[in-house]
């Protein structure tokens, strides 16, 4: 696009972001502050993910953008257009073809590979924010690996409700050291993060934090021995492709209680239907 650098950001800014990314990769799960810029898209709409993507994108990359698992949701379309315009890179909806995948709220069903990068859009990088609003205080807690507050919260869930009641943005322990927000992906996706071959990068633009999980890193969802982590998903099969092993969206079909369940990952669903 005329008047703008490749992938929108100027090279100095990209270098600043890459330095933050390198630090983040070196300390898995640790939140690295960075000089987040105003982007031409609003805060809360993926500015962190967009800046990370802009910093790692090269001319030969193939980009996939999903929101809620789907390539055709309006915000995914908008971000894909943004990089189509500012970087002119090839875009795809096929998970296997992409070298960089920017996502909001999901991890694709298809297993990611070592030559792929997944960039998560993160609204709130601080996993402890609901328990302790002060970032000065949570920073101290991370430094001391003082995560008792979160364990107490999970324990209180069990005591009151008989089970842990977090269904998305379910906190994880990365490399046995840092408590981390996986971003608001459904807890169903959490196990995919563990020892994932692909590099996982997280960008929070408004909160000005970057963090990362290097390939093959251990990522454990917090739980108790007698109350093990349980992912949540609809028990019904996909109404379009019949999949039972994918995360489902619930679609209301009429006003008389009619509903169907369909794969949230549109690419996964289409591939299965094409193969059938």
């Amino acid at each position: 696009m005329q008047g703008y650098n490749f992938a929108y950001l100027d090279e100095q800014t990209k270098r600043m972001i890459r330095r933050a990314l390198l630090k983040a990769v070196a300390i898995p799960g640790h939140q690295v502050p960075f000089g987040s810029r105003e982007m031409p898209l609003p805060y809360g709409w993926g500015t962190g993910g967009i800046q990370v993507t802009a910093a790692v994108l090269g001319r030969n990359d193939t980009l996939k953008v999903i929101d809620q698992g789907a390539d055709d949701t309006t915000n995914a379309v908008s971000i894909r257009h943004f990089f189509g315009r500012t970087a002119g890179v090839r875009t795809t909806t096929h998970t296997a073809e992409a070298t960089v995948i920017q996502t909001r709220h999901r991890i694709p069903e298809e297993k990611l590979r070592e030559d792929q990068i997944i960039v998560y859009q993160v609204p709130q990088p601080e996993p402890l924010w609901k328990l302790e609003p002060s970032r000065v205080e949570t920073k101290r807690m991370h430094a001391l690996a003082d995560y008792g507050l979160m364990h107490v919260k999970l324990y209180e869930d069990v005591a009151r409700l008989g089970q842990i009641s977090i269904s998305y943005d379910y906190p994880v322990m990365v490399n046995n050291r840092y408590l981390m927000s996986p971003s608001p992906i459904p807890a169903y996706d959490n196990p995919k993060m563990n020892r994932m071959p692909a590099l996982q990068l997280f960008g929070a633009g408004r909160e000005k934090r970057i963090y990362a999980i290097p390939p093959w890193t251990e990522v454990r969802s917090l739980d108790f021995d007698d109350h093990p982590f349980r992912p949540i998903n609809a028990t019904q099969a996909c109404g379009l492709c019949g999949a039972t092993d994918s995360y489902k969206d619930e679609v209301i079909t009429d006003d008389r209680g009619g509903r169907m369940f369909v794969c949230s990952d549109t690419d996964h669903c289409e591939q299965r239907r094409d193969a059938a």
Partner: protein
Amino acid sequence: MAYVAVKGGERAIRNAHAWLAEERRGDSSVPDLGLAQIREQLGRAIDRVMAEGSCYDPDLAALAIKQAQGDLIEAVFLLRAYRTTLPRFAHSAPIDTAKIAAARRISAIFKDVPGGQILGPTYDYTHRLLDFELAESQPPPDAPLAAPDPSPMPRVHDILGREGLLEADGPIDAEPADLTREPLSFPAGRDVRLQALARGDEGFLLSMGYSTQRGYGGSHPFAGEIRVGEVSVEITPPELGFAIDIGDLTVTECQMVNQFKGSKTQPPQFTRGYGLVFGFSERKAMSMALVDRALRAAELGEDVTAPAQSPEFVLYHSDNVEATGFVEHLKLPHYVDFQSELQNVRRLREAVDQREAAE
């Protein structure tokens, strides 16, 4: 099939943008609004957009206001997103507000001060009656002219400071921090706090400042001095080695004087709260000065009990571009997370049902 309803995002966006452009233009039988008209006749809106957009350019602000249909926060956002792409080729010397070409200068703590009290173009003493003549585009009567008064206009604070009754300005040590390049971190120095407040949302600062006047972190303020006018901006290019004037800015400066009973280390004296804003905006400059003083509570050994005294609370929530983005992002699809919550609530209810059946 119902599922089809969520498809077609691409065409929907294109059509929405076309509709928006048409709506922005409005009735095409009404003349198109020129940028010069916005710049000249909506000056206070221009000032607000430049201040919160952190970019002093009335023409760009006019464009942003036109493009945003007068939605000033949207206009601020447009200007911010533009300024962030601009290269930075020099840093100016600090502006000197003692040498301001004042259009307005008042002090509420002395009946008269050297340099005089100048009301300037203020709404303060207008009666807020709708002026129906304005609807008929009548040219205003000429304002009377007088020769400019060349007498110096020393800062009221410097006069008080000579007696030691007012705390001195802090030392000017390191280069000031820059929030637009480095993320906010705590403890945040006063330089960072003032920068955040200067580009913070006027409404937010107004409410925060107001809350200190109603008992939430009170600091007994007096408007020591408010001045509005033009200051020159100077840079010193390394290849020249001397300062050159690159242009003028209109700014509003407010110095609040606050009561302070003294502490173990400091004698009783007045303390300061400071506000400086691009353009003509006393409301913002005064609010900023109140909040600046409130944020100094910990440093002055006062109890920190109110929101306006908490740097984390104020600085993390003062930026309207950040705030509006995150509040409005709730309209983005959240159905994956909602679905998880739905299954979760169903599971919790099942557990309750099973427990009740067992009892």
